[in-house]
């Protein structure tokens, strides 16, 4: 499942996508993120028949991603690899901006 967390508003699209099929629920993203954007859920909130743990983007962060992620995304051309993307072995995390 591609879970897109975030929003689009007048200024652009701000979505973090977690591909749950590529995720092994290691929890590294939760540890790596300086803004504490992720959390491990006990089970997939969007699939009640699947009782496996899964990382989600915290509801109270999801509508502020542009600002929450700002420290990892300095403006300019050579953006460093994002911590959340770097630690994820399955490459399950992508950002839309």
């Amino acid at each position: 499942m591609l879970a897109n967390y975030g929003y689009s508003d007048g200024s652009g699209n701000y979505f973090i996508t977690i591909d749950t099929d590529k995720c092994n629920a290691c929890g590294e993203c939760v540890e790596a993120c300086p803004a504490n954007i992720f959390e491990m859920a006990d089970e997939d909130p969007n699939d009640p028949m699947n009782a496996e743990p899964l990382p989600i983007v915290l509801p109270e962060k999801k509508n502020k991603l542009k600002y929450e992620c700002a420290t990892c995304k300095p403006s300019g051309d050579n953006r460093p690899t994002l911590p959340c993307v770097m630690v994820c072995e399955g490459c399950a995390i992508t950002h839309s901006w």
Partner: protein
Amino acid sequence: MLEGKKPEFWRWTESNWINPDIGWEEARFITLGIDVGSVSSQAVIMTDGNMYAYGNMRTGADSPNSARNALKFALEKTTLNEDKISYCIGTGYGRVNVPMADRTVTEIACHARGANFFYGSKVRTVLDVGGQDIKAIRCDEKGKVTNFLMNDKCAAGTGRGMEVFADLLSVPIGEVGERSYLVEKEPPAVSSTCVVYAKSEATSLLRKGLSTNEVLAAYCSAMAERIYSLLKRIGIEPEFAITGGMAKNIGVVGRLTKKMGLEPLKTSWDTQLAGAAGAALFGFALCHKRNG
């Protein structure tokens, strides 16, 4: 309109229903789905996965009471007692405040499951426009979610935005869609669906001499544009279905489907019930899993 109460142009009709063809007495599992949205609340009662009764009403000031009232309304025409219900799932924006819920499930999962039930297993893309959010969902033939996004940052492009707009122009919400097509030439879309901006833009368009119908058309078209851009993000795959109250607004749906080049599937069910129906179905599936 100097005296008396201003009519409430946003108000839609509340309704409840019972299936005349089935009873609950023989059912193995009676499950309840309650969807407490920001604008409307629904309770759907299923007997072994079949629609048995429902109630659909406006959400009140607090979620627990809205859930209780929707259930009472659904039970009204039945001889069923609340204590006969085997399992209850709460969903929607107010789902954590459904007092009788055994568990909660997100509205994403429930709308996909409900659309699969109402429109059949061919549904792959589900759009739900609720009171305060837009959900774009892709699902498989079982109604399981494969890709989703939900935009609830603001009321732009949502049912609430449409209500504010209908009220501003003193047009009953049920007539907005039809009247938006009573224009000779389609006006350009308003530049923003942001409720605050759209309001002032509408006022200035009226002052410029546009008719009420033209302003409605301009707003419906902006909403369709906004919804379309969110759908494109998850990828549109046929068949396509729309749930939620906005499905009833042909002004937005007509313009949206024209952009998409896809006709939405039709159902005889009230599209506002999809979330609660999905919840009741998950309740049934979970009862089965638990009891073998």
